[in-house]
């Protein structure tokens, strides 16, 4: 026998009430419970729905659902960390390495051109303001997928940008003196850090985009269900 939409909704509400609020987490646990309940009710037609749910819940054990959620989180963290590393390292492959070097060279030359630390800092500060405006805009966008664990995890990498920016700021404010391979050491460090920051940030956004696409695939199926 198949459970009705009302019965499935009761299981979903129950999962929600006990703290499993992410749709993609709920989805997997709900299907497992519903499949088990359906089988129990098929084997014993006299078994009430709620009794079948209770029996299934007991079979999961005390930490059963939590263990599943934890394994989903652990799996997603691993998956998206690998994706993030793939995106990050792709900039150092044949396809983009020239752009990375060219950008670093451009920033180095810009510092040479401006030659005054305060003026370069002003340019950098302007870029920083623009960057923050973009970040703020992204934050204000309606978070259609905020109830998806996959979206939450894929978006975590973009959250570390402040750390990188602090390092670049520090390198500009307290530049290293001297030469390295015949180049100004201070300018070189700022160039490398700025490019690394850009690469990190683009990789983080690409990872988040992967998460959005995965969440969207589930959301689209969910729409089919309720249409």
């Amino acid at each position, binding site marked *: 026998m198949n459970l009705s939409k009302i019965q499935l909704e009761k299981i979903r509400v129950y999962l929600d009430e006990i703290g499993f609020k992410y749709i993609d987490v709920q989805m997997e646990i*709900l299907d497992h419970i519903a499949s088990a309940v359906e089988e129990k009710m098929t084997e014993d037609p006299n078994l009430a729905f709620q009794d079948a749910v209770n029996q299934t819940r007991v079979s999961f054990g005390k930490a059963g659902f939590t263990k599943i959620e934890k394994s989903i989180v652990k799996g997603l963290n691993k998956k998206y960390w690998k994706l993030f590393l793939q995106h990050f390292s792709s900039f150092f492959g044949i396809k983009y390495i020239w752009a990375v070097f060219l950008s670093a060279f451009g920033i180095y030359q810009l510092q040479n051109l401006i030659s005054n630390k305060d003026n370069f800092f002003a340019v950098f500060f302007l870029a920083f303001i623009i960057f923050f405006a973009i970040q703020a805009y992204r934050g204000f966008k309606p978070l259609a997928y905020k109830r998806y664990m996959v979206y939450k995890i894929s978006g975590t990498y973009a959250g570390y940008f402040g750390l990188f920016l602090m390092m670049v700021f520090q390198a500009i404010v307290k530049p290293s003196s001297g030469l390295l391979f015949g180049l100004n050491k201070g300018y070189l460090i700022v160039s490398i850090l700025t490019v690394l920051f850009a690469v990190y940030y683009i990789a983080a956004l690409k990872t988040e985009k992967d998460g959005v696409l995965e969440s969207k695939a589930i959301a689209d199926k969910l729409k089919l269900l309720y249409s």
Partner: protein
Amino acid sequence: MSTNNELFKGTLQTIVLKLLSENDRMYGYEITQKVKQITKGELMLKEGALYPALHKLEAEGFLETTTEVVDNRLRKYYSLSRSGNKEMVNKLQEAKDFIAQLQLLLNLKPTT
């Protein structure tokens, strides 16, 4: 007498990969039931052990997933990826070698 489940924890990933190699795609509950059916109830694959194994294999890229609407709910199907297929062959060989060593160590006669 049912088999001690502790004994097959180490081969859980191999079992999942093997089942998925024989079936185009499977969902979580289906895997637990398949194990129960094949072993005639001797081995019970608990949810708390199955899902961590599935999610680990998925994170490592050995499994691919699709989500579909089935019986008024969403269902996540697992299937073997290309690398998962290779991993299954390796793990199966490892398991066979291990069983052969166990037979030698414990002086067991192979079942014919």
